[in-house]
């Protein structure tokens, strides 16, 4: 019955009707793929956090079976995570993930990447630090496939397991007695998860808007016909059922295609460098249940959006046919935004993450709510001030349907929000490396500085490294390499000095900044990923809406063209109709985003953030103009029809 009719409507829509259907399908596919990516990112960081939990020991109150400590070592410009393990007397503890057995004293296990690097470099530069590796660590022990990890077994009373370690928890973790090697996700792993949650929010909201635009594309193609059906007596229920069935069928197909696209893209996405390396492809696949959830949610949302789009037809059969003036937008929309924004200065870096994420999502949604109202105002101003026909047409169109105009630019405007938010937050660069020849520093145990310095001289001499070893304040021993040694000489010095002070790594100033540099790089990569996704969504949705607006108005365009209106005027009007709100809304959204970021700012505004912002503005405009230009051939084709008919 209904389904049958739906199917015929779907097929019988003619070439242009099918074009709308294909566009919807494509848009839903893109949206689903990106949505899966946004969702999967959270699970991927979660998986990393889980897998590295064993390296973050939880002190045991009783029933300790082992001692665990960790520190960082360095080779070339990369960090090596060194985990020291010792079994306490009694029953042997369960091995950590990725290891076949608990390492015995003196045993060394290397991650595959570290083992490969040790074979590749001369022994004196790396391998001698971890002599006689017993085997390689399984993937279950690693953050990413390229991670450098060494697990070293000790006796519980070995100096490495008893000595004091660095006070800085980022550099090393002192020996801790543990009841098991389960551990818990480390603070920095959790920080990454929070950041990825925020990134997801920033990506998902434009995606929802995009999905809505896509759904309306189907409806836009149908509403005239459905209104006609209403006029001949179809009940609202039947009309709704048919539209929803159609939208849902198309959306489900789109969601499946999108899932396939995502699966095909996983190898590419896995190459994104984060936390020092690329991803295990397995981490990027969301769990089956989540996948199923997305496959259900996407068609559902598209269906709901279709119903919302149809409300006017259902309420009044003449609603579409007569093209009445739509009711004006309510100012409440803007009030909502102002209310949410007023709450932001109350937030700070210490506010709980959940509150921040919710506030951010609210601010984002309210920008989206206020958008159409502002577009309406812009339209009124444009129309009132227009001198030429193109601006007049653009302005009137903005007033007539601010929602659809907003849909065209909302993606980019919301990206402006993201860019404004991130632009203010992106941290300043570190001043890379200290000037002068590299020097390795290590803190000697109290009162042993001179003795340690002497041994350092011997070891460096034996390794044929030219260096001056001195003691500095607080028992720090400094070995300054002569001349301008290459990375190889530095790694020889590191290897020579390995184990000089148990539990401590001799490091350069650059090494000490390695984590800051890595976090910075990650934030930048994250920003670029989020902005790329937003832009893809934004540009795709502006292309989709531009296309559907041409299709919707093809008869009028064609008749205007017949009456001698130059194609350029129509095109100029179309461009103005997009670019005027884009400029105002994009600029406004950037400001709102920046405003929301103020409570979380560390330090001042910096060049990198501003460059990112500038790039976004340029890309946004270029992308929207480009996407609009893509529908120009369609405009030409539509207006070339010498006998335009309603359908």
């Amino acid at each position, binding site marked *: 019955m209904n389904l049958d009719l739906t199917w015929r409507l779907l097929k019988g829509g003619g070439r242009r009707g099918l074009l709308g259907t294909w566009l919807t399908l494509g848009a839903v596919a893109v949206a689903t793929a990106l949505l899966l990516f946004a969702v999967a990112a959270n699970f991927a960081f979660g998986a990393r956090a889980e897998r590295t939990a064993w390296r973050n020991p939880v002190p045991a109150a009783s029933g300790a079976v082992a001692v665990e400590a960790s520190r960082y070592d360095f080779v070339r410009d990369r960090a090596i995570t060194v985990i020291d393990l010792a079994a306490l007397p009694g029953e042997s503890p369960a091995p950590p993930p990725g290891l076949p057995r608990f390492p015995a004293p003196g045993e060394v296990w290397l991650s595959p990447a570290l083992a490969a690097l040790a074979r590749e470099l001369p022994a004196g530069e790396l391998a001698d630090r971890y002599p006689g590796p017993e085997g390689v660590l399984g993937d279950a022990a690693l953050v990413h496939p390229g991670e450098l990890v060494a697990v070293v077994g000790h006796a519980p009373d070995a100096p490495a397991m008893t000595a004091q370690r660095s006070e800085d928890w980022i550099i090393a973790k002192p020996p801790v007695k543990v009841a098991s090697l389960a551990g818990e996700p480390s603070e920095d792993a959790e920080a990454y998860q929070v950041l990825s949650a925020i990134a997801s929010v920033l990506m998902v909201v434009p995606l929802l808007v995009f999905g809505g635009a896509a759904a309306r594309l189907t409806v836009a193609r149908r509403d005239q016909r459905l209104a006609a059906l209403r006029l001949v007596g179809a009940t609202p229920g039947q009309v709704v059922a048919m539209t929803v069935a159609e939208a849902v069928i198309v959306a489900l197909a789109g969601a499946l295609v999108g899932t396939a696209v995502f699966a095909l893209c996983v190898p590419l996405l896995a190459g994104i460098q984060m936390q020092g390396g690329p991803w295990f492809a397995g981490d990027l696949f969301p769990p089956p249940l989540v996948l199923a959830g997305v496959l259900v949610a996407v068609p559902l949302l598209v269906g709901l959006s279709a119903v919302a789009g149809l409300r006017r037809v259902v309420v009044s059969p003449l609603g579409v046919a*007569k*093209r*009445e*003036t739509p009711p004006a937008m309510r100012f409440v929309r803007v009030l909502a935004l102002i209310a949410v924004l007023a709450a932001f200065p109350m937030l700070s870096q210490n506010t709980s993450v959940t509150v921040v994420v919710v506030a951010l999502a609210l601010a984002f949604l309210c920008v989206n709510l206020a958008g159409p109202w502002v577009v309406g105002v812009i339209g009124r101003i444009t129309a009132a001030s*227009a*001198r*030429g*026909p193109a601006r*007049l*047409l653009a302005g*009137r*169109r903005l*007033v*007539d*349907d601010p929602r659809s105009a907003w849909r065209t630019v909302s993606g980019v405007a919301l990206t402006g929000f993201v860019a404004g938010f991130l632009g203010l937050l992106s941290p300043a660069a570190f001043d890379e490396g200290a000037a002068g020849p590299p020097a390795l520093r290590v803190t000697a145990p109290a009162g042993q500085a001179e003795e340690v310095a002497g041994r350092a001289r011997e070891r460096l001499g034996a390794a044929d490294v030219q260096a001056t070893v001195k003691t500095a304040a607080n028992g720090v021993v400094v070995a300054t390499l002569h001349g301008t040694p290459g990375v190889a000489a530095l790694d020889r010095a590191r290897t020579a000095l390995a184990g000089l002070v148990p539990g401590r790594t001799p490091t350069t100033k650059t090494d000490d900044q390695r984590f800051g540099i890595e976090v910075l790089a990650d934030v930048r990569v994250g920003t670029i990923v989020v902005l790329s996704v937003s832009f893809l969504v934004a540009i795709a949705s502006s292309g989709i809406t531009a296309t559907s607006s041409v299709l919707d108005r093809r*008869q*009028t365009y064609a*008749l*205007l*063209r*017949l*009456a*001698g*209106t*130059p194609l350029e*005027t129509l095109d100029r009007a179309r461009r103005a109709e997009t670019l005027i709100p884009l400029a105002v809304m994009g600029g406004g959204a950037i400001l709102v985003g920046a405003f929301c970021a103020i409570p979380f700012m560390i330090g001042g505004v910096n060049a990198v953030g501003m460059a990112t912002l500038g790039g976004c503005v340029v890309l946004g405009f270029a992308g929207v103009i480009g996407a609009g230009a893509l529908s120009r051939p369609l405009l030409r084709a539509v207006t070339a029809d*010498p*006998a*335009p008919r*309603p359908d």
Partner: protein
Amino acid sequence: MNDVLVGRALAKRFGQTVALGGVDIAVRAGEAVAIMGPSGSGKSTLLHCLAGIMKPDGGEVHLLGRRIDAMGERKRSALRRTRFGFVFQFGQLLPELPAEENVALPLMLGGVPRAQAVRRAREWFAPLGLHSMEARRPGELSGGQAQRVAIARALVSRPAVVFADEPTGALDQQTGQETMRLLVEATKHNDASLIVVTHDPNVAAWCDRTVEVRDGHLLAGAPHPAGPHPAGPHAAGPHAAGPHAAGPHAAGPHPAGPHPARPHPGGEAVHGPKDGTRA
């Protein structure tokens, strides 16, 4: 002589279909010509060829002695904008523009400043019986009112020829008659020629003569009986002295007698704002 628009040996085919098979037609200044014929006979195609919308495969079209069918699309487009006016069945008004701006649009496209264009557009509303409809949007007008706005738009730039393809096709009989009266009178008053495609003999009866199209060919044209429209109260309108050829009413399907009594709301003749200038 005073032929405004001349088509010679116009031919057009779509694949195997011969839409026009060598049509000769001439339209004089101020003349109103109805094109009739069965569906699919080539009426719209003829109109499109004459109006420079379509390039004919063969034959020539001359406007005031200038050949226009060989012009490029850009030039023809400019020509349509400045020298021709169009009234279609429906859907030609931009739904988001108030009626007066719809009428002003061709002027603005021609470079007339907005304020002046809107002022000139407004002058058309009262003569066409559209009092106080200036600010309404097309969705808020009745079908007949919308067609009258379209007529104003077609005439506002003072075209030489107005083309109308079934301008009353979407209207009921009575509204159609009234709209047709306004169209004919307004074009005449503005010294424009009118070419109307229609199925309705009553509509065709408003014109000076009717040509019949059959399978892409013209049947012998027939001038209408003397006097424009014997029974209409508009008979004394400004076009009464128009160039109507007298003669027998051969092929035209017009009712022999006067038109059936038609109430003319408003009833007055159409005096478009006539300032003598042609855009």
